[in-house]
């Protein structure tokens, strides 16, 4: 039976899972790491001031990448859960409304012009928000954006962005093509600074959680939510902006990584249903963020170790895992 105490228990369990995946991510790689190296790297330097190579590698390379991957996974999963409530459609994901398409257009344009990395990030973020405002403004046209209108506008904007991306790829010089493709497929290797993404993840959760029960009611229909005193228009607008912010941040940090935002809310929902909870956002939102973060962290660790020293783009791996899992879930849903 849903209760606050059981929610805290579940979240503590998932927090332990996240810590475990972080430890695995920090320890895995070509340079062997001991347990004491891990502790030194995480909880303070050695008193003498000299640090081993392993500690340097953890602090300088693996930790930012691991935290960044975790934050992106959490952001994408959270955005997916929010979009599914907003569109009342279990098949919605963070990219369904064209946000990643906008980010890709911005980022590729910056790459094509040969701009610096920080400008590519800025362009990706700007592109994501431009796409969001475009969809929001167009769908809002008749003052009562319905789900279908929102979804259709988003899909059309996304496919327009797809065409622009294809155009840029076809005219891009050979030398830039590989970087562009990695960006498009999603790659945690480009993460140098994890703190902005972590901060946005914390902020999004802090903003969404107070409205979690409102979202539960909203998921059952606008009219019912209205009669129960939920300010539907305001909450929907807030959810949309929050999901867009989370998606834009994740895409800017690590490119458009697929399937985390679609799969993770479903996985968590199915698992919670076994425990006798349905679609309760009070637990679902923090749980999806933790599971999404852990999953992307593990996928990224696999991506950089499985055929080391070659690295795979993590987006390919999440899709390769995600597609069969999702098909399996869909086929099971039909039979039960």
């Amino acid at each position: 039976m849903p209760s606050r105490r059981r929610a805290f228990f579940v979240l503590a369990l998932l927090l332990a899972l996240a810590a475990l995946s972080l430890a695995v991510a920090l320890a895995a790689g070509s340079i062997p790491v001991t347990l004491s190296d891990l502790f030194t790297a995480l909880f303070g330097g050695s008193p003498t001031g000299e640090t081993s190579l392993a500690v340097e590698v953890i602090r300088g390379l693996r930790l930012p990448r691991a935290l960044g991957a975790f934050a992106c996974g959490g952001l994408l999963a959270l955005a997916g859960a929010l979009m599914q409530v907003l569109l009342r459609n279990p098949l919605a994901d963070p990219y369904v409304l064209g946000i990643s398409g906008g980010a890709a257009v911005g980022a590729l344009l910056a790459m094509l012009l040969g701009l610096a990395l920080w400008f590519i990030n800025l362009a990706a973020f700007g592109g994501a928000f431009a796409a969001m405002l475009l969809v929001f403004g167009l769908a809002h046209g008749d003052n009562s954006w319905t789900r279908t209108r929102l979804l259709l506008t988003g899909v059309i904007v996304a496919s327009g962005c797809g065409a622009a991306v294809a155009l840029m790829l076809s005219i891009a010089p050979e030398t830039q093509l590989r970087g562009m493709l990695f960006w498009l497929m999603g790659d945690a290797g480009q993460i140098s600074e994890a703190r902005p993404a972590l901060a946005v993840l914390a902020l999004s959760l802090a903003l969404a959680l107070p409205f979690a029960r409102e979202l539960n009611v909203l998921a059952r229909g606008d009219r019912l939510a209205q009669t129960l005193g939920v300010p539907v228009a305001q909450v929907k607008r807030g959810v949309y902006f929050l999901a867009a912010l989370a998606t834009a941040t994740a895409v800017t940090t690590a490119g458009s990584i697929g399937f985390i935002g679609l799969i993770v809310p479903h996985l968590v929902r199915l698992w919670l249903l076994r425990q006798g909870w349905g679609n309760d956002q009070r637990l679902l939102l923090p749980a999806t963020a933790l599971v999404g973060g852990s999953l992307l962290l593990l996928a990224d660790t696999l991506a950089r170790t499985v055929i080391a020293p070659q690295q795979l783009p993590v987006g390919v791996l999440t899709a390769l895992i995600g597609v069969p899992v999702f098909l399996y879930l869909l086929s099971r849903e039909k039979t039960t």
Partner: protein
Amino acid sequence: MHSTRLSTHALDVSIGKIRICDALNLSVASGERWAILGRNGVGKSTLLMTLAGLRRPQHGELNLCGVQTGVSPSAPALCVPSGTFSSHDLRRLAKIRGVLPQHQSDPFPATVLETALVGRHPHLGRWDWESEADRAIARQALAAVGLEDFAGREVHTLSGGERQRLAVAQLLTQQPQLFLLDEPLTHLDLAHQVAVMDLFKAITADEATATACIAILHDPGFAVRYCEHALLLFGNGEWLAGRSQEIITADNLSRLYGYPLREIRSDNDRWFIPR
């Protein structure tokens, strides 16, 4: 002791080109049950949403359980346009008036008990979780509609009629003082139609709860049998409100539905059948 649950003054409601009612004056006191009758598409549901305070009328005033449109104690009248409620008032209204929507949607999996508990939402604080007391209220509501053994079932496994009764249970869980029912009898078999109407009759007849009920119905016989008051909507802005026994007549109904009807009496019941 009867208190007014809903009153309107010179209320004009229209949607698109359809005039639903012109200058409607209605006063619904606790203990009363009202039926709204009219053809398909005359705007019965739109009027019900307006009476629930969720849609702005073209003109006129609405007072819901003591909450007046456009006037709220926290916000000066100037801030809130006449004919609408502030979001503060809508939160307050959610505790005192409940609406049974015409359609239910469950895009995500949930149990029957969870779904019934949604009705507690307006009564809980921002960080509150449903307490044991809330769960007891929900179980009681499920028992009232005969779903007490379904608490753990998944909503998707319910039949149409069972889902409709669950919606009624959700409304009971909300514990409002004014019930606004949009076609409460859809999907229900005859026995459950009678059971649901008996349920609302018992609730409104209980003086301790001081509740009133307004229902959109399609069977004039049920309207006469269960609602002592009725509001007829003729579709051109014209309306007729009064005691069911007086205004629900074969003549009025023939004009209302645009089809000749005949009255059949048996004992105290009156039924209307198409000629």
